[in-house]
């Protein structure tokens, strides 16, 4: 047995990156973690393009108009006209930002040790205090984020 372990014949059995996303029978916060990671990655990619493209405003008005045109936004008579697909994608981006921001706020408080309960004597059934104590704050933030998402629907699709 010892030789087997030393020579590395043992199956590594690691779940790899799939272990970040998929967990059968996992708890709710585990899925929030997976979504936080995915939204974070999307935002890093978006921010690089955003900084580079929006930087065109310092070159000339023509460069600015070209960039806006490339993004599907044209200005006619002082009013915007956005390509409907781009408009929808903008709303999706707002949802991504709302999720990452409000979940991040929950993580900031809990990772410093606030709102996750105090150590105590464990009693059967062992319901983890850190999960149960952080749920009210999570629900409060979810309600505010949902409220902004609903205003976004009104703003993006019912007015324009």
């Amino acid at each position, binding site marked *: 047995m010892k030789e087997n372990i030393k020579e590395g014949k043992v199956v590594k059995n*690691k779940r*790899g*990156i799939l272990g970040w996303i998929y967990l059968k029978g996992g708890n709710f916060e585990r899925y929030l973690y997976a979504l936080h*990671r995915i939204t*974070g*990655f999307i*935002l*890093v990619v978006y*921010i*690089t393009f955003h*900084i*580079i493209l*929006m*930087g*065109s*405003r*310092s070159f000339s*008005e023509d460069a*600015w*108009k070209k960039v*806006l045109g490339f993004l599907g*936004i044209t*200005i006619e008579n*002082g*009013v*915007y006209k956005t390509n409907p697909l781009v408009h929808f994608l*903008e709303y999706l981006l*707002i949802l991504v*930002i709302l999720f990452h*921001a409000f979940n*991040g*706020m929950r993580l*900031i408080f809990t*990772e*410093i040790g606030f709102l996750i309960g105090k150590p105590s004597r464990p009693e059967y059934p062992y319901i983890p205090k850190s999960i149960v104590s952080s749920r009210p704050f999570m629900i409060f933030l979810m309600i505010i984020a949902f409220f902004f998402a609903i*205003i*976004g629907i*009104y*703003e*993006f699709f019912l*007015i324009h």
Partner: protein
Amino acid sequence: MRKIVFWGMHLLAGFLIFFFLLWHIFYMHYQSLTKAIGFGTHYPLIFSEVVARAKTAGFKIAYVLFLIFVLYHAFYGLKNILIETEFGKKFEIPIKILIILFATFLFIYGIFTTLKIGG
């Protein structure tokens, strides 16, 4: 600097970005909400408005700070994602160097465009 202090700055940057970013989104996209607060109708993407905004000292300072916090928070997070993979331990130092270089490039470009337009 100890490793845990970098993590603490990541959290602090995240906390400050929360307020900056929500304000930025409301100003740019949630026109009816800003109208309700009392800002009046504005068209933030028209070039003349962009220039007028960029000349204000308040906006310049705010945008530079916003840029620093966002780049630090985003690329610290990206570093975490890339290093926590199966190959992360082997390539830890090259990944960190590449990320620092790319973030510095974006920072210099961002500062240049923010300050140049104002003159």
